[in-house]
């Protein structure tokens, strides 16, 4: 029995196929401007008995790709995916391309409560992407570069648009771009911590997933502020698709 999960996110699409409880396919591509076409390419040539879609593009996909496709929210999908990877996790911090969420799990793994940021991209992957662009760092190097900072600058704005003008004025003041990058990472970490603190965070085992969990500077700052080691999977972007595949498998 092969069950697939597809996670159509704002920046990337992932497919995971599970057979007999093991991940046999795990693939990723850019979302681009035509998510359904990209998803079709990702699934091309793969047979599966059941497919479950998640992510912000789930309904679009279910409506256009195959009307039989069922959907599940990314909140439930990452809850199941995270527990598969870390059976001890009680809180999930998921920072993706354009949203950030915190999900609390009950002992059995069900979602008990969640918080999501509002309609703007404050404190998300998009914010880091704009930062990398304005500071001239490649996105995949941004975290490493920020860790080279020698002093800490304070960035007040969490809004992707306002932060950019704050960055411009810091550049104009002659500040070092590594220091500015560090300040921006601190801003993201602070925002994530304040979201986490609306939950019982003391003693909790916290999983950090989503594209931003790849960034070593955000991870380090979070671990410092929370004073705990985070559970970060090898590929933090695959958790949603993996969870969707697992839910598909459970339902059969």
């Amino acid at each position, binding site marked *: 029995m092969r069950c697939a999960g597809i996670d159509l996110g704002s920046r990337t699409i992932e497919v995971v196929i599970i057979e007999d409880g093991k991940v046999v396919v795990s693939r990723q591509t850019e979302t681009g401007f035509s998510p359904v076409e990209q998803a079709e390419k990702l699934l091309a040539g793969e047979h599966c008995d059941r497919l479950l879609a998640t992510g912000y593009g789930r309904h679009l996909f279910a409506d256009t790709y195959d009307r039989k496709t069922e959907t599940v*929210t990314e909140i439930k999908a990452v809850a199941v995916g995270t527990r598969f990877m870390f059976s001890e996790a009680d809180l999930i911090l998921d920072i993706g391309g354009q949203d950030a969420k915190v999900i609390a799990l009950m002992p059995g793994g*069900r979602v008990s409560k969640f918080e999501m940021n509002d309609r703007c991209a404050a404190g998300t992957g998009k914010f880091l992407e704009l930062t990398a662009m304005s500071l001239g760092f490649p996105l995949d190097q941004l975290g490493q570069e920020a860790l080279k900072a020698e002093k800490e600058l304070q960035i007040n704005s969490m809004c992707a648009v306002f932060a950019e003008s704050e960055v411009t004025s810091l550049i104009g003041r002659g500040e070092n771009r590594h220091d500015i990058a560090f300040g921006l990472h601190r801003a993201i970490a602070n925002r994530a911590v304040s979201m986490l603190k609306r939950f019982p965070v003391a003693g909790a085992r916290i999983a950090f997933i989503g594209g931003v969990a790849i960034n070593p500077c955000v991870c380090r700052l979070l671990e410092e502020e929370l004073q705990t080691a985070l559970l970060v999977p090898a590929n933090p972007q695959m958790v949603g698709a993996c969870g969707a595949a697992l839910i598909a498998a459970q339902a059969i």
Partner: protein
Amino acid sequence: MNRDYQKMWLDLGLDLNAHDSLLSSLETGYRDFFLNRKNRPEEMAYLDFVMSEVHGLRIKELLNAKASGRKVIGSFCVFVPEEIVLAADAIMVGLCTGADFAMAEVEKILPRNTCALIKSAFGFKLSKVCPFLEAADLVVGENTCDGKKKAYEQFKQLQPNLYVMDLPQQKTDIGREHLQSEYQRFLTAVEQLTGVEITAERLRHGIDLSNKKRAALARLARLRAADPAPISGLDALLINQVAFYDDPVRFTGAINKLCDELEVRIRNRSGAAPDGAPRILLSGCPMAVPNWKIPWLIEKAGAVVVGEESCVGERGCRNLVAETGTSREELMAAIVDRYFKIDCAVFTPNPERESHIVEMSRALKADGVVHYGLQFCQPYIIESMPLEDRLQKQDINFLRIETDYSMEDVGQLQTRLEAFIEIIS
């Protein structure tokens, strides 16, 4: 909607082009949200008819009544006592505040960060698309939240017949006296406007009409406790919205007839949503026509809304005025008693609201409460935070959302609501 009313709209001073675009978006919305749905009670046909004629036949009725010497009074709030208006044989109508209109013009007068409901009232006025507002002989504003009270200072420039009623903010003896004196001042203003002396007998008649309307709405609210829910949340919200526009006697009759049908549906276990569909109580800010966004999203995700703890809903129809008094003073005191119980978030503190949400949630067998806060509506949003803690302590699932009238956050809201429904299922 029938377009044979162009001359009437023109005579009222409406901007026909803007009004046409409002009507066509209303028609499209109504078709998608209501007419295309399955399992609606047959008696909803009355509501469909009223909605199809809301700017047509209903306005014609108002103008005919005006021609015969009756007056039309518009209001923005459930604190404006309809009993007094009806006692003077005048007509009360709720005014349009449920859609964004002419926002660029509105934001020349009001700050951007003003709640959508207040902005909407200005949008309808500035773009001349609300026939109710233009037909009104008196428009009543009320000092509830700071946003409204300051905005009325500006609104008065656009609507010279605006009358502002002050309201207490605390449930104390002084607060009650204040409400009583404001209602007395309003009674005098209505008498002056209509030329009718409001006698005890007339007041009793006004109370009787309002009570019967509220009792019909309360009957509908109780029937929604059945599982499967006999009527969708969208249809029930629509009924509560139309309650503000329609002729009270005709409306009461239609709703009682609908309730008779719902009782049969309940006996046959025939629901608007499938058996076992997750049940949600909506709580918070009012939803005026055509603001159907949240119940639409909830019901699209497979749940059913079983109650609205809101001014358009429970707060509007809860509690009747005692009919025991004989003198005008006694009857006025009974009116004050009823309205002073309204648990609007402008009151401080406002503990009744929390216990009533718990009570409603149990009575309607809700699986969860969704708190709907309009962005920048401080009273409700601030109340929603302690509410979340307290309701969770009583094992009531609670989701807080903040939004406005635009559709740009529909994707985000859909994810949140679907995830909440996954949790409570």
